[in-house]
């Protein structure tokens, strides 16, 4: 699988602050790659370097196989970029903006006439295309920001916090949109601090903190880096000693404890064994009303990796 983004030793300083510190990042083609980190981790700075808005102080950057130089715009022909809370010129109408940006990509009149209405329709702004952007709500501007990022049928779409500022319905729509464009063979690289968002749509993740990549890989690969125990937490009706005994007999169970109606099962494995545990509870006469596997969520992994990093820094 070829790489669409490759950075090596990427460094960016703002006076005494090191925003990005020796970052090695690879994004494979045809993936949805999440760039995860807390606020101020260096995500936006990295993205801005990738699209030529900021100049790196050190390291190398290659995007779509081309070395990134300062003010060399041709590499951006195949990149779509949506900034965080995109600020679009309010004096233009939605349709005019897409038309002008299309001209900047060198799209012919015919291409613009096809693509602009299609994208406005896709982002739900078909009826508002002739309105001034100044009259758009924040969510509508966000959706227009998405449309302009997809205008040139890019090979790579870079999205900075794409669902920030959106209502829950808007968030779901944007996520569906990202999945759709990925299906069409576009590589999506998105920054987010919303763990569940990344977990829902990304195939690959890089976690960054204080400008340093903490972990990178598929979700499973990253989860494997966490060595802590996995726990199943189940709400069980008719919870009895027979149920507990049945669960304890399972070979991958380390320990079982009860807290009212709640059954806590500590596991020796990191595999998802919820169905086996559920069967054992049923065999003991219990009825499962809810069940969660704790320790597999990206949030747990994220917090664990960040804590580990903090410990490492503190011990220096």
């Amino acid at each position, binding site marked *: 699988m070829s790489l669409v983004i490759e950075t090596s030793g990427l460094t960016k300083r703002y006076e005494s602050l090191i925003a990005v510190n020796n970052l090695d990042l690879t994004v494979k083609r045809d993936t949805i790659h999440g760039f995860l980190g807390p606020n101020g981790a260096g995500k936006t700075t990295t993205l*801005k370097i990738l699209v*030529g*808005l*900021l100049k790196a102080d050190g390291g190398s950057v290659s995007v779509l196989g081309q070395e990134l130089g300062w003010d060399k715009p041709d590499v951006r022909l195949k990149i779509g970029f949506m900034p965080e809370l995109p600020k679009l010129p309010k004096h233009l109408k939605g349709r005019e903006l897409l038309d*002008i940006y299309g*001209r900047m990509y*060198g799209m012919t009149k015919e291409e613009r006439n096809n693509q602009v209405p299609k994208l406005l329709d896709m982002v739900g702004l078909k009826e508002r295309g002739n309105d001034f952007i100044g009259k758009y709500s924040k969510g509508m501007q966000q959706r227009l*920001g998405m449309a302009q990022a997809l205008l040139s*049928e890019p090979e790579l779409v870079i999205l900075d916090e794409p669902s920030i500022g959106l209502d829950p319905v808007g968030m779901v729509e944007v996520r569906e949109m990202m999945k759709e464009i990925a299906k069409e063979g576009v590589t999506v690289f998105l920054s987010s601090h919303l763990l569940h968002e990344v977990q829902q749509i990304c195939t690959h993740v890089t976690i960054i903190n204080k400008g340093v990549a903490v972990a990178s890989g598929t979700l499973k690969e990253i989860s494997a880096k966490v060595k802590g125990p996995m726990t199943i937490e189940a709400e069980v009706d008719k919870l009895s000693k027979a149920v507990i005994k049945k669960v304890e007999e399972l070979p991958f169970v380390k320990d079982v404890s009860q807290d009212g109606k709640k059954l806590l099962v500590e596991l020796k494995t990191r595999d998802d064994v919820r169905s086996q545990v559920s069967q054992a509870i049923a065999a003991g006469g219990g009825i499962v009303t809810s069940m969660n596997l704790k320790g597999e969520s990206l949030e747990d992994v994220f917090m664990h990796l960040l804590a580990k990093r903090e410990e490492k820094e503190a011990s220096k």
Partner: protein
Amino acid sequence: MSESRPSWITKFLAVVRYEMFWNIRKKKFIGMLIVAFALTTLVLALDHIANFFGGPPIEPNPDFVIGTNVGLGGFAFFLFAIVTVMNTISAEFESGTIVPLLAKPVSRTIVFLGKLFAAFLTLLATYCFLMIYMAIGGFVVYGPQNNLHLVPLSLLGALFSTFIWISIVLLFGTLFRSSLIAALGPLGIWFGTNIIGSIIGVLAGQGWIFTYIPGTGNSGYIGEPSPTGMGVAVATGTDSIGSNLINYILHPSWEVTYYKINIGEIAPGQIPWEKLYSEPLSNVVLTSIAVAVIYFIVFIGISWYVFRRAQITE
């Protein structure tokens, strides 16, 4: 999408289009145009108004259009420059619209030149409109006009004069990324050079310095001696390129004479002028054009350099 790379002219025209939409939709620009139109109308109607209130009857004046430099003067150039470009770069930074714009496959040089060209087109259209209006109005009010073929020189001079201020406004806007500073900085320079500077120049006799500074420049006197014995007052700076060019075409042998006021000899009802030196009008015209071009190139060059290297932290 087509696989061929777009030519620089395609991208350049896209930026011009982007900027023109902004220029013609700016409320302050529309307001300025209305004010300029109203003032031009007032200049044309002034004698009629005076006549209505018992003033002298209107006499035919075949030199009205050329004599008034088609109605455009120093502060108008400055104001048009401010209104046209005070937001051109700074507001892109202030509003954050610079981020999606520079993320497009267009070089910063093309963005910069496209914006500058859009300002040129906006001013060209505005000045053409005002000058045509003034020429027709002059014909209607004061009868047939002489030397109307020289009106394009006024247009050329007006563009030269405005573009110096445009380069200064752009420089402030690019350096400070603030529309307010882009307007106030040049305003300070305008006041400094045109008002305070002129006063100091006349009183201290060092007005020649203002030949090399944008604006009104040094004050001199041309033509036949006037009743005061000094001729007709003219400004020799970059704001007067148009009128001086026309004067030179009409009177190529004219000289400009400079004076100072001897403060120590001031007596009631008497201004003690002292003649300093004279130079051909051709020198004045050439110097002011050279000053305009040099300032424009230097200021625009610095703005372009700063813009091209700007880190977009917005």
